[in-house]
């Protein structure tokens, strides 16, 4: 699930050493923000991300058409400028051409005569959800296990870390396929009123994305857990934790009041750097037929479908790919910028 097409866990890279004392946090955030907005690439990234989120939220007002609306006779059509853009596309009215010309669609239509642009706009909803929820699921599972592991130490620590080792040894692709098949099969067959049934209803509402999230989350928390554990270990020895312990603070208080806020920063930053892997993972799932339910569009499924048509209708794969490229680009530079900004070493240079 990375960059390479499969079987990889998102890797948390270049974690800044942000284990600062709570009391300096405010100044730190202000400094970090200043550094961030000085970084031009990161600002561009931030702007693109914010714009995309707005587009996703206001999709119904922005999209020229309904993403479901089909005009079957306009299948695979494209406006003139798109045909001119791709050297291997030829309009029907030319000698030896095959593409239906229709100016109704700004970027052309897909194989069911649906507006590509509208589908790309609506598709940002799925891709952005994956971009945010994927890391969150991984954060939720990984952070808790990592915290417990690092704080409790001893046998519990050993057990959790061995679990991480074992989970790590599975090829993600295999685990995801088996898990998704299992979830969809059991939840679909559940009776009305049960919890499983309700989960399935939620999944349907979200176009089948819930199980994608669960699948991704379950196969990508291991790195977060490792990272969180490492951070906890390094922070446990600090004076203020020892002070808290000596005044009789409960484990719960120590973990959530004193440890968590201090390790959250670096972990969140590390997670933002993995966002592109989640987005491309959705594309891979679509390719192997475990993507979102139609007619919900997603960039991943649009690319996977369009890739098969690349020699006749390249626009169907290239335009969603460009959207994907843009958002990945933005997340990458934003993530790198965040990391640089939050790294206390940087303040000295």
């Amino acid at each position, binding site marked *: 699930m*990375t*960059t*390479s*097409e*499969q*079987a*990889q*866990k998102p*890797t948390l*890279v*270049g974690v800044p050493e942000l284990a600062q004392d709570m009391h300096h946090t405010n100044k730190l955030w202000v400094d970090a923000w200043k550094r961030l907005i000085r970084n*031009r*690439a990161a600002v561009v990234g931030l702007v693109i991300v914010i714009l995309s989120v707005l587009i996703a939220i206001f999709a119904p007002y922005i999209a020229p058409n309904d993403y479901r609306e089909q005009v079957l006779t306009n299948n695979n059509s494209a406006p003139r400028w798109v045909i001119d853009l791709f050297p*291997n596309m030829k309009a029907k009215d030319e000698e030896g051409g095959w593409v239906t010309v229709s100016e109704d669609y700004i970027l052309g239509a897909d194989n069911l005569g649906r507006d590509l642009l509208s589908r790309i706009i609506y598709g940002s909803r799925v891709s952005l959800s994956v971009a945010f929820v994927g890391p969150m699921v991984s954060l939720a599972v990984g952070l808790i296990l990592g915290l417990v592991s690092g704080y409790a130490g001893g046998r519990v620590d050993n057990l959790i870390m061995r679990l991480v*080792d*074992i989970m*790590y*040894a*599975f*090829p993600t*692709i*295999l*685990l995801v*396929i*088996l*898990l998704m*098949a*299992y979830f969809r*099969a059991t939840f679909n067959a559940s009776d009305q009123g049960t919890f499983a049934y309700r989960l399935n209803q939620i999944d349907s509402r979200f176009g089948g994305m819930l199980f994608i999230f669960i699948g991704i989350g379950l196969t990508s928390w291991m790195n977060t857990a490792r990272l969180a554990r490492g951070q906890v270990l390094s922070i446990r020895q600090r004076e203020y934790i020892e002070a808290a312990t000596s005044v009789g603070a409960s484990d719960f208080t120590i973990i959530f009041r004193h440890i968590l806020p201090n390790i959250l920063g670096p972990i969140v930053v590390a997670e933002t*750097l993995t966002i*592109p*892997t989640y*987005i*491309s993972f959705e*594309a*891979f799932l679509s*390719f*192997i037929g475990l993507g979102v339910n139609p007619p919900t569009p997603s960039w991943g499924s649009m*690319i*996977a479908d369009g*890739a*098969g048509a*690349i*020699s006749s209708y390249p626009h169907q*794969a*290239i335009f969603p*790919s460009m959207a*994907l*490229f843009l958002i*990945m*680009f933005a997340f*990458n*530079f934003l993530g*790198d910028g965040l*990391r640089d900004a939050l*790294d206390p*070493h*940087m303040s*000295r*240079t």
Partner: protein
Amino acid sequence: MYQFFVRRILWMGLVMVMVSIITFLLMHQVPGGPFDREKALPERIQKNLEKKYHLDDPLLKQYLDYMYYAFIPRVTTGEWKPLPENDHLINLKLPIGDNAYIRWMNFGPSIKSASRTVNDIFRDNFPVSAKLGGAAVAIACLIGMPLGTLAAIRKNTIFDYLGMGIAVLGVSLPIVTLGPLLRYIVGVELGLLPPTGWGTLEQMIMPSFTLGFASSALIARLTRASLLQVLDEDYIRTARAKGLREQLVITRHAMKNAMIPVVTVLGPLIAALITGTFVTEIVFGIPGMGKYFVTSIGGRDYPVIMGTILIYAFFLVFANFIVDIVYAWLDPRIRLS
């Protein structure tokens, strides 16, 4: 030192056993079986098939049988027919006569291809995937490391943005798109390279590049990030202060340490790439192992699922083992313990 090796190897064995148990349970838990067809087979035919492949045994017995044949070596004597069920990966002749052999690692038959065994798939397909994966990792490093280094040295300049832009292009053009695109432009329109196939050097270029380019992004970003961090360390400042040339500072002092995180991901990356990559193999018609990770699940070909998972798990734990050793070499502060 010895203790480290012994403990790690024992632990590797245990991980493999745990992986096999979880996989075994999960694959039997998922609905559907190897004999489900678009045209459903009558019950008696299903029964015959289940009997033939011992799928009518209790699950525990099936699992123990599998592990016994796969991992316990045995000595055989006398006549040995080349039946599929007799296929072992390792056959060592013993000097005690009467055709005595030590035979080890029988991963069972492929249910989908009756004339083949899982061992056949390992023997025929694994070398192909290993070659493709190896070439891809090499290309990924050759593209990624210089890009990342350049971006780090010239941070926040056009080189940085351009280099990272190329890297992001690698991540965001999924192989699903890049593969067919290259195949069409280079293979069909320009006719420079054969569109599909495997074997000749010409046929290897496009798939290796496609796969390697995608992974180069990860390497580039890692290299950049960790080099930036290292360049800020005190000892580098000292080296600079001593008036060493910048080039020398980077190549001699910074690079070695900056490689630690890169090596960390290279381990699993190599394991993933050499055991096969589904999309690349399908797009370029390569007879590798990657497709079995997907098709074996689709066909509920239980022995092949187990075989592919175990070989992946093996390479992954082995790669991590090597990574730990390389760590110690790169950074003497890390002890093998």
